[in-house]
């Protein structure tokens, strides 16, 4: 087993959270975002498809989902950047027995700004779970669990996953989710009902090209300051919506391929978004062996290739749907990870790129956070393992296990 490294972030540090097929990693830098310290791996050997940082209300809590092919999928958290990890004794995210469904994976974690104690997670098979008590207890959102379309949702190549959860930044009743396949759904009544919102999105693989639902949407990003503005990377197709999903407009103008998975929005400019085009759904590698991020700065009217610092020869890479993210600084940092285990970052909005790390396991998740509180100082030096006695079931009424990493 590899030794586990730790970081102790300071206020203002940037974290890049990296989930891989063999565990989770953290990368930490000051605001310059030029030198990175690596921490992890956590959940060694387990696929980690979702990670997130909850910095609301003074918390500094890391969350990630550990998908053990043996022991099932569980949701873990840490309040000290991975030194000690809390795992529920009984799994907190699970389907009710009467649903006939069993949890395969957790694909997405979201912390709505408008509801500081609420957490959402999108799972496989496609469903949305909610916790109203900062992750202590979870329940499926019934309106989506019992949706009449469910029987016709089918798995894409990655499984039947609900991979995008996008709460409205100010209205707790509104949310967009997306699944492969199934497409886009929106609620405006707090999850009681959900309407398919796929008008204008093509389903290349179906006889009916523009069905009400059934599209294989790969990723959606929403702009926080202009929440009706959405960008969508489809299984063939790039789209923008200016009415929170009511209609979608094709914006694949000047990209080498409109197939792809990953997408990131700009934190400040609603006209700017980033993608990594992939050649086709059969090949699923970067076109022409060139690793290029494409950026639009005009809402998709045109796209430009960003290549400085990225390999432009023999780079047969794949960037998966959750493996791209932006940080909120000015200028924004953009990050992505490849299936070949390379993590790239840009501290200047994509103008230039740095290979932050290579040789990682296949990367499936990249998220960012800015630490806004001083971390609780653990005993010992950075890198030391803090020992914590495993609590007994009786002595721990919350039913959680806390163990040192």
């Amino acid at each position, binding site marked *: 087993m590899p030794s586990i490294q730790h970081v102790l972030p300071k206020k203002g540090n940037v974290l890049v959270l990296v989930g891989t097929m063999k565990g989770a990693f953290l990368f930490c830098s000051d605001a310059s975002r030029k030198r990175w310290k690596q921490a992890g791996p956590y959940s060694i050997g387990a696929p980690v498809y979702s990670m997130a940082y909850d910095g609301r209300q003074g918390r500094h809590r890391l969350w990630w989902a550990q998908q053990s092919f*043996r*022991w099932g999928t569980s949701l873990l958290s840490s309040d000290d950047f991975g030194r000690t990890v809390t795992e529920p*004794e009984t799994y907190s995210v699970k389907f009710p*027995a009467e649903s006939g469904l069993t949890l395969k994976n957790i694909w997405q974690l979201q912390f709505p700004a408008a509801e500081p104690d609420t957490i959402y997670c999108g799972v496989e098979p496609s469903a949305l779970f909610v916790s109203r008590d900062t992750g202590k207890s979870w329940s499926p959102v019934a309106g989506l669990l019992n949706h009449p379309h469910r029987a016709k949702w089918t798995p894409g190549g990655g499984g039947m996953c609900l991979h995008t959860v996008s709460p409205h930044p100010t209205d707790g009743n509104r949310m967009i989710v997306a699944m492969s396949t199934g497409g886009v759904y929106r609620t405006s009544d707090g999850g009681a009902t959900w309407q398919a919102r796929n008008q204008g999105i093509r389903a290349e693989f179906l006889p009916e090209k523009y069905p009400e639902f059934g599209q294989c949407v790969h990723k959606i990003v929403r702009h926080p300051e202009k929440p009706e503005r959405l960008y969508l990377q489809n299984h063939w197709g790039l789209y923008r919506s200016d009415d929170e999903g009511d209609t979608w407009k094709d914006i694949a103008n000047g990209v080498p391929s409109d197939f792809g998975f990953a997408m990131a929005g700009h934190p400040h400019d609603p006209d700017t978004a980033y993608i990594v085009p992939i050649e086709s759904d059969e090949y699923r590698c970067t076109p022409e062996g060139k690793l290029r991020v494409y950026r639009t700065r005009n809402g998709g009217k045109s796209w430009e290739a960003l290549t400085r610092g990225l390999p432009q020869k023999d780079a047969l890479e794949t960037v998966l749907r959750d493996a791209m993210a932006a940080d909120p600084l000015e200028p924004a940092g953009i990050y992505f990870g490849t299936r070949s285990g390379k993590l790239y970052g840009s501290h200047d909005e994509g103008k230039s790129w740095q290979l932050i790390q290579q040789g990682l396991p296949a990367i499936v998740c990249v998220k960012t956070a800015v630490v806004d509180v001083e971390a609780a100082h653990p005993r010992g030096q950075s890198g030391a393992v803090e020992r914590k006695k495993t609590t007994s079931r009786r002595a721990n009424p919350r039913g959680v296990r806390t163990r040192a990493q």
Partner: protein
Amino acid sequence: MPVTVRIPSYLTAFADGRNSIVVDAGPVTAGGVLESLWSLYPGLRDRIVDEKGELRQHINIFVDEESIRFASGLATPVSEGSEILIVPAVSGG
């Protein structure tokens, strides 16, 4: 009827560190013994069976030397003095 259950190392964290647990089980099936085990250590259940109560795909349960997959599943009979082994499968990638 005492039955010994052997716990794999990963799961000992959810069994007070124990790798062997004697269950005084009334029922005489593998499933009955496991139900008794869950009542002692609830954290073991979710990691061995799924929401439907079915054995996870990559976990094997042996009653003495017989895999219950090739016997009667959770209904496999257990005799007094039997040993139940919970063994992670040699699968992965």
